[in-house]
């Protein structure tokens, strides 16, 4: 074994120092081992990390949202510029301070920890809250905050919270809600107005019918009877055949006028309806229809199905009359059945069934759009305003059943 000279030892020491210095200064690319080369790219990795962090920080700092991280004790470990602006304080003052300044007044940071750690099994446990807060300038603002549990490589756990000022959205929602409420109120008012107007219209029609019927009964028919009485006396005093024949002819005309007047009076306001109620009115209607159109109309009724007030009674009668008339006019039935009954839910039901041609019930909607089914549509609308409804069951060749339903206790103004 040779003894190395001092110079050789110094040279080796210089080599070792040079290597150590290069390693410390990060000037080394690779380490040469026995059988392999280990590349050292620490500087590159560090640079990449630095760039990445700068990018991340840039994104976070540019956010309009408030971004802040805090630990289990509630101490802030990271905040962005938006957060500092919101609290109108410097970063130095805020870092390390307590998170409660950034949370809604009634929110305890321990509750957030507890809730997030309880859901830690989830892929990315998070918690959302939207609460009103008072800003440092005294304004009442709405914040939407998402809290998320974050674990770093060293096993430290923090919560990252991202808060967004959603005051504008909340105000818009509130305005929309107020507008909707206002609109609903106006629709309600208009509907009530419409109900009143329709009611007044119905009432006016019925009143006019009764007035005309009264006039026919009290005035015209009395005059016709008196005329006939006078004519009878003239007939008795006739001196020749010509005068007698003319008087007979005039008497016949007076009889027909009297009959037409009585018929018109019944049409306008059936005495049976006014004096005995809906069922009696419908029975009279059946007889009238049979007589006029030679179609039997069977009426079967429930005495309990009597409307509480005369206006509803007259209205339901007029609806039933229109439906029966339509059936006879359009469906060419051999028989029509009218039934009334008191339903278990307190409603009155009038059913009009025929064995005529029938029609496509679904097409009725389209027909209404072309106003061909306006009669049924008008009845349906009116029933709905009263709190009732209309049912149509029909098919081509299978007859039809129209059911009118109205609350028995519906008042004249349409309210139950």
């Amino acid at each position, binding site marked *: 074994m040779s003894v190395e000279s001092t110079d050789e030892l110094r040279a080796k020491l210089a080599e070792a120092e*040079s290597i150590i*210095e290069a390693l410390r200064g990060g000037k080394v*690319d690779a*380490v040469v081992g026995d059988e392999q*080369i280990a590349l050292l790219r620490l*500087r590159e990795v560090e640079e990449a990390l630095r760039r990445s962090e700068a990018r991340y920080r840039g994104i976070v700092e540019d956010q309009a949202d408030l971004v802040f991280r805090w630990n289990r004790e509630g101490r802030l470990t990271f905040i962005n510029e938006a957060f500092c602006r919101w609290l109108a304080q410097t970063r130095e003052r805020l870092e390390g301070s307590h998170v409660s300044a950034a949370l809604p007044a009634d929110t305890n940071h321990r509750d957030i920890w507890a809730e997030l750690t309880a859901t830690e099994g989830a892929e990315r446990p998070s918690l959302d809250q939207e609460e009103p807060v008072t800003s440092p300038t005294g304004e009442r603002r709405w914040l939407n905050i998402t809290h998320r549990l974050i674990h770093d490589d060293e096993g430290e756990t923090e919560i990252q919270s991202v808060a967004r000022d959603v005051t504008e959205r909340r105000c818009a929602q509130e305005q929309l809600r107020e507008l909707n409420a206002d609109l609903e109120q106006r629709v309600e008012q208009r509907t009530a107005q419409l109900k009143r107007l329709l009611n007044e219209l119905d009432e006016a029609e019925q009143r006019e019918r009764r007035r005309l019927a009264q006039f026919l009964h009290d005035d015209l028919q009395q005059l016709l009877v008196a005329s006939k009485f006078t004519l009878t006396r003239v007939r008795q005093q006739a001196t020749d055949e010509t005068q007698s024949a003319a008087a007979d002819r005039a008497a016949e005309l007076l009889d027909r006028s009297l009959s037409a007047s009585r018929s018109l009076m019944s049409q306008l306001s059936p005495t049976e309806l006014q004096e005995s109620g809906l069922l009696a009115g419908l029975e009279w209607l059946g007889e009238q229809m049979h007589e006029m159109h030679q179609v039997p109309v069977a009426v079967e009724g429930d005495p309990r199905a009597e409307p509480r007030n005369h206006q509803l009674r007259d209205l339901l009668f007029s609806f039933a009359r229109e439906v029966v008339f339509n059936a006879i006019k359009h469906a060419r039935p051999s028989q029509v059945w009218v039934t009334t009954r008191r339903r278990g839910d307190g409603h009155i039901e009038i059913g009009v069934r025929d064995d005529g041609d029938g029609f496509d019930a679904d097409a009725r909607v389209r027909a209404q759009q072309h106003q061909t089914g306006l009669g049924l549509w008008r009845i349906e609308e009116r029933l709905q305003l009263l709190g009732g409804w209309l049912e149509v069951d029909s098919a081509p060749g299978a007859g039809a059943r129209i059911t009118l339903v109205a609350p028995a206790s519906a008042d004249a103004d349409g309210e139950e």
Partner: protein
Amino acid sequence: MSGAASDRDATSDEAIYRLILFVAGREPNSEQARTNLANICGGHLEGRCDIEVVDVLTDYRTALEHNILVTPCLLKLEPNPRALVAGTLRDTEKVRTALQLPNKAS
């Protein structure tokens, strides 16, 4: 005396420098070392440098033979004594001193 000294300088001035630069591919520090060595040799040593570049990624045995542990690393084989500088060779004066190259001013 001055003559003898002059003779040694003359011998030193005329000596051929056998250098090996160990690098690791095109890694950044190795690239800097290539550039810096070219600058050093392009000065007063022009025409007297015999430089071999060994890439340890393709030939690590040569590095092992010369007990090279890290790259980049410059090894002076001749003239004696052997000397070694690790790193990017950025500090030119340090390299000249370590390799006992002639003073820049001479």
